[in-house]
């Protein structure tokens, strides 16, 4: 079953800006799905339409086969949203925020109270349950928004940049939490600017640029398309000046650091063999950039070049 099905979705704002142009997107039940794109590409508008915060110009949205236009209440009851910006009443107490949100979904406070307690404990907010929301740190506010989105146990959870501005330790604990609820059956759609996050968590991915979906595939096959990767090698000793590294495509950054480019048909063993022959010891190695990041940039650049030239042609002809 499809958790989300978007067909021919378009949104043109009053100022004439076309934020979405005939977007088609399907997300399967149980998936952990990444929706990526540069700033202003249309990610938040797409999420806005799905969550009824933005009025669409054309197209249809179905959530678990329920049409959002025809049966809004039922479709909305399946959804949980963690928005990009903090959007709770800062003067309300943490637990009240959760119990109130549950009430909007028809859950009595008698049932919502224990659910809220459970979520607050899981997300490390139990000690803050009587604090006002504005007294929380940035990371706590993010976790509160996750708790609020889950209070009615949605089947589809949408997270719009949930880890923006969150420190690495907390980000990793949030990843574990999201992976756990995904394993328990909640479908998750994630937008993020941390591509490492998308690569680690998501099984399928769509990339949106200038209001159009330019890629929609599974993460593995997308990463397999990577033509080349760049690695940083830290050497144990300085590289001799007369060294010959044969066919290795490299750049010497400093005495003990090499940047090595590896094409798709090469492998690291061959590189290490050459280095070993020259008695060069590698103490550590890392990818220069995240693999998904490299692909993302190349796809967006390609799309912008294509759309840019199409726009230039259309302007010239008009």
């Amino acid at each position: 079953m499809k958790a989300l099905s978007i067909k021919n979705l378009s949104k043109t704002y009053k100022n004439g800006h076309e934020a979405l142009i005939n977007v088609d997107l399907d997300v399967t039940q149980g998936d952990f799905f990444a929706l990526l794109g540069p700033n202003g590409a249309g990610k938040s508008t797409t999420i806005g339409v799905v969550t009824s915060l933005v009025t669409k110009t054309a197209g249809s949205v179905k959530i678990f086969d329920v049409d959002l236009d025809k049966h809004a209440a039922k479709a909305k009851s399946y959804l949980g949203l963690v928005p990009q910006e903090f959007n709770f009443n800062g003067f309300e107490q943490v637990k009240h925020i959760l119990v109130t949100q549950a009430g909007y979904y028809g859950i009595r406070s008698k049932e919502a109270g224990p659910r809220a307690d459970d979520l607050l404990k899981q997300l490390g907010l139990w000690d803050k349950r009587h604090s006002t929301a504005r007294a929380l740190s940035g990371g706590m506010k993010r976790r509160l928004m996750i708790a609020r989105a889950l209070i009615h146990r949605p089947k589809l959870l949408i997270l719009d940049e949930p880890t923006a501005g969150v420190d690495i330790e907390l980000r990793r604990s949030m990843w574990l939490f999201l992976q756990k609820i995904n394993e328990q059956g909640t479908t998750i759609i994630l937008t993020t600017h941390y591509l490492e996050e998308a690569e680690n968590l998501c099984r399928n991915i769509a990339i949106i640029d200038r209001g159009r979906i330019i890629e929609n595939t599974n993460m593995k096959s997308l990463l397999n398309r990577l033509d080349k990767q760049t690695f940083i090698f830290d050497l144990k000793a300085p590289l001799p000046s007369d060294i010959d590294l044969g066919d290795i495509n490299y750049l010497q950054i400093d005495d003990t650091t090499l940047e090595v480019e590896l094409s798709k048909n090469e492998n690291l063993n061959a590189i290490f063999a050459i280095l070993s022959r020259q008695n060069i010891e590698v103490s550590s190695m890392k990818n220069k950039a995240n693999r998904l990041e490299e692909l993302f940039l190349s796809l967006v650049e390609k799309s912008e070049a294509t759309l840019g030239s199409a726009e230039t042609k259309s302007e010239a002809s008009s």
Partner: protein
Amino acid sequence: MNNWIAFRTLLTREVRRFLRIWPQTLLPPAITMTLYFIIFGNLIGSRIGEMGGFNYMNYIAPGIIMMAVINNAYANVASSFYSAKFQSHIEELLVAPVPNYLILAGYVAGGIARGLFVGLIVTIVSLFFTSIEIQHLGITISMVVLSAIMFALGGFINAMYAQSFDEIAIIPTFILTPLTYLGGVFYSISLLPEFWQNVSLFNPILYMVNAFRYGMLGVSDIKVEVAFAIIISCIIALSSFALYLLNKGTGLRN
């Protein structure tokens, strides 16, 4: 059942809000209305003598209570709904399966609750200055509730259009306050020249104050049936318009 729980949740949140900030919501009307009783009722009223067959303090008490009710019903919805927009926590409601009529009903009920709460406080305050006897309990209660509904709806529409906190202060300052003072709170329109009596008939607050005064004292400048008809018509028109704005997403949805 789900809708009833959602409505009750929204109303509870609204009541909790105005109780939490009681120094801003409940205390000022109590102080202001006490001053009205002291200055207009006691100091000036003792020189005015009788009005409508009652001493002046008795005569103005229903108007002062009604003034507190409508101002607070209006202010509660206008400030709460606009704050929800301003802080974006209105999105909590918009993403949830709460129908628009229920969002409207919840906020209006919150306005009625504050209006009646403040009305009760002012009534208690008035007992320190005058005795109150209610002649027609049904008329008194229904008129105060209908007036609170009408002005809560007005506050809701104001908040939907408002783009800044200044814009939710403009209508109370430049429209609501003058209409209240000219609505027969402190005088009978029979004291006015005929032209101004006719002009006063276009002021909806005149009907509320007089019908409420009729409920409490048994005297009114206008026919009570006309007052009910006008207020109910206004409620139907305002609630239809507020729902239209909500369905359209004015000021809420891009």
